[in-house]
């Protein structure tokens, strides 16, 4: 392993994986730690994953063989979760995450089947240089900012900027915006949110029926 032969796009790819994995480990195991300790431990773990070789590769390189480069969105989402852990779970933050999940969930349902050959149209192709795709994401980012959804707006802007400066190996904008992990996070989150809403609605209706039933049955 010769770090002097590391290309910029290899460094960003390995770094993205190391940061995301470290942040997830800290989120999982460091619930009781203070914010500064979480950041120091997370940074140290990320450094180990990139810099310490196991055989001919750093540990992050083995993961990269399976995962590919993570999208900028995945890295931002994980880091924002790390930053928010222990903080107040406000309604606004939940709405912000929900907006991100709705947007990414819709993209995942359209992009993956068509890009993998479900039809003649390939939306992935638009990611190389389409002004329409960039314009659409510009509208999404501005709308997210206007409606105070900073996580969605920030993820989109960070992904677009990383694509603009060729931060990863990929030349395709989609790879900076979404990957299967964040797609799974979005779709799983939406499914969970839907189940909670349905259960709450059913319980609410049962509660109303329970309350109204005996009253209706009372003899006049």
């Amino acid at each position, binding site marked *: *392993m010769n770090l002097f*032969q*590391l290309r910029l796009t*290899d460094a960003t*790819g*390995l770094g993205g994986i190391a940061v995301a994995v470290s942040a997830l480990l800290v989120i999982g195991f460091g619930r009781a730690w203070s914010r500064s300790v979480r950041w120091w431990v997370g940074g140290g773990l990320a450094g180990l994953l990139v810099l310490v070789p196991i055989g*001919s*590769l750093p540990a992050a*390189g*083995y993961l*990269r*063989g*399976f*995962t*590919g*480069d993570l999208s900028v969105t995945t890295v931002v989402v994980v880091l924002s979760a790390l930053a928010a852990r222990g903080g107040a779970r406000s309604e606004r933050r939940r709405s912000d995450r929900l907006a991100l999940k709705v947007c990414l969930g819709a993209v995942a349902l359209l*992009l*993956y089947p068509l*890009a*993998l*050959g*479900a*039809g*003649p149209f*390939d939306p*992935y*192709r638009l990611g*190389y*240089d389409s*002004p329409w795709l*960039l314009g659409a*994401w*510009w509208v999404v*980012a*501005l709308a997210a*900012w*206007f*409606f*105070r959804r*900073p996580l969605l*707006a*920030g993820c*989109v*802007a*960070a992904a*677009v*900027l990383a*694509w*603009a*400066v060729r931060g*990863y*190996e*990929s*030349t*395709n904008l*989609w*790879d900076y915006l*979404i*990957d*299967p992990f964040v797609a799974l996070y979005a779709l799983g989150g939406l499914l969970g949110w839907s189940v909670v809403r349905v259960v709450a609605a059913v319980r609410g209706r049962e509660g109303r029926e329970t309350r109204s039933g005996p009253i209706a049955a009372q003899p006049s």
Partner: protein
Amino acid sequence: MSAPRGGRRSTLLLCFIVAAFTVAAIARLRPLPPAAFTTVSAGPTPGAGPRFRTDFVSARPSVQSHAVSVVELGDGRIRAFWYSGTEEGAVDVTIQTAVFDPVAGRWGPERAIATPEAAQSELWRYVKKVGNPSVGRAADDSLKLFYVTVSVGGWSGSSINAMTSHDDGYTWSRAERIITTPFFNLSTLAKGPPFNYSDGTLSLPVYEEFMGKFGELLRLGPDDRLIDKTRLSFGRSGLQPIVLVQGPERATAFLRHSGPHDADQLLRVETDDAGRHWSPPASASLPNADTAMAGLVLPDGRLLIAFNSSAGNRTALSLAVSADGGYHWKVVYALEDQSGPQSEGLDRAHFRAVVARLARASDATVQVTDTTLASVERLMGSPQGYSFEFSYPSLIRTRGGEFHLVYTWNRAFLKHVEFNQAWLDARLAEVP
């Protein structure tokens, strides 16, 4: 609806959004200008008499050799690339290369130019195995070698990598990964050779075989960056496209048929606008039992193709010519034909005898030993008996007008066939 408040964070976020999209619009929004195909110069047609000879590129025992790709070098020699190892997909498989000297009429020693270990080190990620090389010459005269690597699973987990050589294959750049799909970059493979556009970009025919089976064209800029890709087909029936460029705007592509076996025919698509649009896949009126093919455009505009002509297997390999752009074909010569009633499930003694006879007929210099025969037996045997396979051809026409065809010979060796236009014309004259 609540309007955004003008807090400092909100203003900074808006500035970030504007800056990111402005940089992207300036740096990346450069739509590709229309470019024409670069047609290959027909070159002279030597006035010599018919010429046809065969030999083995590689007859190394105890390894499987497969998926060859050939290119002409600057000095007129031929360089072949293929993969070999104990068996297809094994971790000891390497990408090999060797050079054929047409004056001396023999192949030089082979050497490995890509291994899983080297690819892993150059790509900075885990690599389990390597496979399918495809070679071509870029507009700047460098050689471009594409090959696949797999980190997890079988061939459907393949990703494509590119290497460049500025000295005709003696030294190579580090491998670079090409990202072609949004789903873990899985399942893009190459087989057919790349071709050039008039603007200096290169197009590589590739195929996907994860959820769908379809062909695509990758368009690569001078720095090997992927700048566009186009679908040649969709669905679950087309693999391993080859593109035959017939003019600046016109090309015909053929795809291996990998769909339902009641329609085992080669697939054909065409373009009249330099690849911006392709016709829907249609039958090319040639049998194709899920096997790869190779082809080129002859100087007079006819198409020449090498394909498996046997029904349902790879026991016969033939040359066919089409005068109408690939709609109708004439089979002009059977390069190999073991497609008789006993083409499969042969007993060992009979198989060994036929292999020994065919090997000696293919290359008079090859020593057919027990080791040689055991190598072929190991690869072509099954509980049902032994069978033959002649497959995965690669075909080029040199600037001097000679044709070089190399293909997998019973999975063990690579056979090289050299012929000229006079020989081909003589075969055409024999066909009614």
